[in-house]
């Protein structure tokens, strides 16, 4: 270490003795500074290496002239070195900016693509869920239709009306036949599937017999059906029953076939909103 240092000093002394006055030229100092700062700029090495090389060569010419005390020969290469160093830095800065923008362009494209993809995805999801909802709606109404078909219910002003024939009852009696069960099971299933719907059970008779007997019979038959539904698990609050006697005949009472049609129990099914079925006004 000491030996190296001593050698360095002796060389410096030798040079100093050769160069009687150390060169201090403002143009050369300026060129050195500019070349040095260009060298220190990593962008210059990356984007303007050739210009930096040219600047260093000019500086070397100026340094050589300085060593030879050729003051007149320093100015031109020093000026060229300084300006070329500036040129290198300007070019490098511009190219670095260009490169940054070019690289960012890729990122920008990616962000825009992502945004578009998200938009498409969300539109697709919305369309999918809308379709699913539509499908469910269609399925639901198909199911309902199938159930109503099974019950043989008919749409009327008061709601869907399911007619249970008098075959459920023995003549003059209000107890349900054992064979009525299967008919009622379908209705129970429907009411279980649609827990919001209410029903009104309406009883009717033919015109044979007194008014009060028929009213009483029709009411008891309607009550019997209501009770049968309740015992099968349907909430009693959902069911009302009403006897209408011989009123609202659906066929003639002048022959046995018509009278059989008039002896009936109708189940009026209310809407999905759970509204009560309106009672029938007497004509």
């Amino acid at each position: 270490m000491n030996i190296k240092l001593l050698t360095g000093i002796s060389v410096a002394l030798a040079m100093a003795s050769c160069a009687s006055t150390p060169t201090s030229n403002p143009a050369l100092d300026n060129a050195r500074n500019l070349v040095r700062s260009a060298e220190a700029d990593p962008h210059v090495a990356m984007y303007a290496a050739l210009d930096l090389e040219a600047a260093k060569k000019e500086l070397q010419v100026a340094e050589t002239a300085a060593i030879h005390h050729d003051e007149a020969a320093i100015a031109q290469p020093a000026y060229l070195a300084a300006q070329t160093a500036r040129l290198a830095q300007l070019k490098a800065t511009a190219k670095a900016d260009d490169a940054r923008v070019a690289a960012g362009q890729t990122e920008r494209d990616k962000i825009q693509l992502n945004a578009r993809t998200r938009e498409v995805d969300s539109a697709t999801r919305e369309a999918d869920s809308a379709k699913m909802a539509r499908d469910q709606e269609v399925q639901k109404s198909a199911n309902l239709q199938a159930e109503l078909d099974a019950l043989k219910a008919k749409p009327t002003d008061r709601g869907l009306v399911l007619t249970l024939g008098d075959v459920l009852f023995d003549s003059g009696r209000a107890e349900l036949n054992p064979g009525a069960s299967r008919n009622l099971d379908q209705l129970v299933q429907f009411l279980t599937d649609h827990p919001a719907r209410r029903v009104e059970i309406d009883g009717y008779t033919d015109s044979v017999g007194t008014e009060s007997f028929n009213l009483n019979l029709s009411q008891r038959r309607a009550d019997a059906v209501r009770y049968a539904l309740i015992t099968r698990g349907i909430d009693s609050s959902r069911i009302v029953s009403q006897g209408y006697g011989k009123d609202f005949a659906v066929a003639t009472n002048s022959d046995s076939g018509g009278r059989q049609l008039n002896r009936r129990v109708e189940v009026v099914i209310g809407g999905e909103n759970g509204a009560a079925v309106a009672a029938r006004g007497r004509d």
Partner: protein
Amino acid sequence: MDRIFSRLGKTALAIAAISVGTAAYAGNPLADEKIAVAKASVERAEQSGAPQAAPVELATARDKLARAEKANAAHEVKPAALLAEQADIDAQVAEATAQQQRAKKAAIEFDMSMQALRQESLRSSPPAQ
């Protein structure tokens, strides 16, 4: 100037010595070439936005080029060549200054558009589920 001659080499010196008698009638070919190069650089700078971006550098380059042409016409070869060299590098610096300002402006505009885009993207992205 020494450097200029060193580039030419000893052969060129010999030829120059022979042709001294005949060369006096016109501008020195070396100076002519340097002036032509400088002229091209000045024109390029003029067309690349340097008049707005680097008017001082460009004016300096033009002035030096004019003086180089004048010196060359007066058979002052050495000053003509030196001035042409300086005019050339000055014009290049002027052009590069304009280019650098353009790049910087574009980069700033790009940064702003990216920032806007990122904010837009953050706003429109769905909440994490």
